[in-house]
């Protein structure tokens, strides 16, 4: 391995960065590890911020990825509340906002993504919120409560989870979506229709094919969202959930190859062999689909953290995992795996009216992707079958009287 005494510097102390640090030690890496994050807190889980935490069912300590004393005991230096201002890849140093410079043998970029903002009139009014960090979630939680009304801009997972949590807290929610259906970017029409109905039955209002032109306000605080058709949706707060662009600026400035995020190979290595990029910031190969993708999921953060840590410590990299993710809204468990790029047909197993069903995306007789609502067997079996690329019987798959175990046999 050569003279590696400078160690690994990890930029970004989120799920990917925190996991990479822990895995390096677990894999036997003995040189210094420095974990730098711009938030003032140690690595924590973001998914609960729009779900259990927002509803008051989880506290801050339950979000932390590792116990407080873990990092010191593992010899991982934590530099929190600090940003990296530049990378010198020739000299292998990074510059910090506090004026310090750190040297590295290997650099891991885990800078994640940020909540996309809408540069519209009134966007800087108080009460116009985003949801990415724990601090954002605190602000959002304060804005919700009985009698309050929140306008959610964006009918994606963040928006729908926030709407569900708002309802659980007794607040009204209106979801404003640009496309003709919610979840347009990430799910099929069957799921869009199902979630629309489920939310409507619980008091959420939807405005689809609706463009937002700006925000109305009074005394510096938002009072409404102005739509393209001239109407204003009254609200006490507005949440903007319209996607999360990658924080790849640092990488670009340092000359690394970037597209929609930092370009990496299947070891999470960038165009510089001493630099890795993992998690939401990475534009990565998807071997099964012969294309590159930016996967915004916990599973991806973990997989790429494993890849980088394995590459650095000379361990074999584990085989590619089937991409998967989940979204909890109300009492629904929505789990999905695979990507339907190459699918040519869908099979619906079960009945959406029962809120227990799965949509399988097939290419011929091979399952490419599965979207399951309250159907964990379909999700788990589907995920396995996607990975195995094993053809199945379409007739049996569509038949709920045939168990998934039997379908997968």
């Amino acid at each position, binding site marked *: 391995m050569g003279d590696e005494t400078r160690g690994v510097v990890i930029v970004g102390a989120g799920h990917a960065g925190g996991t990479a640090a822990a895995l390096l030690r*677990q894999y036997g890496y003995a040189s210094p590890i420095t974990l730098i994050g711009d938030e003032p807190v140690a690595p924590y*889980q973001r*998914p*609960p911020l729009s*779900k259990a935490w927002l509803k008051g069912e989880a506290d801050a300590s*339950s979000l932390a990825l*590792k*116990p407080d004393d*873990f990092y010191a005991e593992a010899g991982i230096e934590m530099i929190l509340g600090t940003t990296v201002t530049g990378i010198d890849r020739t000299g292998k140093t990074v510059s910090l906002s506090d004026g310090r410079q750190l040297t590295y043998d290997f650099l891991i970029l885990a800078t994640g993504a940020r909540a996309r903002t809408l540069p519209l009139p009134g966007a800087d009014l108080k009460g116009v919120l985003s949801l990415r960090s724990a601090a954002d979630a605190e602000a959002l939680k304060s804005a919700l409560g009985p009698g309050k009304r929140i306008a959610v801009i964006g009918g994606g997972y963040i928006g729908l989870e926030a709407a569900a949590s708002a309802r659980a807290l007794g607040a009204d929610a209106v979801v404003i979506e640009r496309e003709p259906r919610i979840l347009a970017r990430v799910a099929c029409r069957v799921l869009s229709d199902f979630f629309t109905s489920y939310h409507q039955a619980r008091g959420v209002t939807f405005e689809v094919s609706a463009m937002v032109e700006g925000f109305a306000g009074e005394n510096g605080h938002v009072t409404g969202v102005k739509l393209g058709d001239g109407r204003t949706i009254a609200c006490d707060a507005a949440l903007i959930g319209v996607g999360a662009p990658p924080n790849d600026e640092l990488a670009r400035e340092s000359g690394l190859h970037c597209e929609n995020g930092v370009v990496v190979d299947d070891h999470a290595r960038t165009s510089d062999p001493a630099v890795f990029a993992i998690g939401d910031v990475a534009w990565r190969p998807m071997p099964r689909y012969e294309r590159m993708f930016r996967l915004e999921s*916990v*599973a991806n953060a*973990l997989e790429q953290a494993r890849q980088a840590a394995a590459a650095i410590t000379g361990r074999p990299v*584990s085989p590619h995992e089937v991409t*998967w993710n*989940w979204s*909890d809204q109300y009492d629904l*468990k929505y*789990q999905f795996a695979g990507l339907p790029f190459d699918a040519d047909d869908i099979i619906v197993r079960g009945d959406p009216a029962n809120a227990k069903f799965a949509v399988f995306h097939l290419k011929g007789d091979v399952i490419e992707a599965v979207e399951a609502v*309250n*159907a*964990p*067997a379909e999700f*788990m*079996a589907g995920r*396995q079958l996607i990975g195995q690329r094993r053809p199945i019987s379409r007739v049996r798959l569509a038949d709920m009287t045939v168990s*998934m*175990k039997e379908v997968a046999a």
Partner: protein
Amino acid sequence: MAKITYIEHGGAEHVIDVKSGLSVMEGAVKNNIPGIDADCGGACACATCHVYVDAAWTEKTGKPSAMEESMLDFAENVEPNSRLSCQIKVTDLLDGLVVRMPESQH
């Protein structure tokens, strides 16, 4: 509060006091006990917090929900005493609980 013994596949034992209200999984993760991955953080979405509940404790820990059973059905090396530890809530009644971790969660 419950004293829980977590036994790694290789035999190493960890005895930990876990606060009531936490899950058996959280007890392991918060105390850095290896062998429980809990990728989804306890959302019953990944089946990587799989444990084997000691025979003496299967009655007190109760039965898994239909959701948990379905997830377990497709995990690796599942036994009749398998549970997803994120779904077992710690109470005083579980004081003395013993769980074993599988060789791997993936």
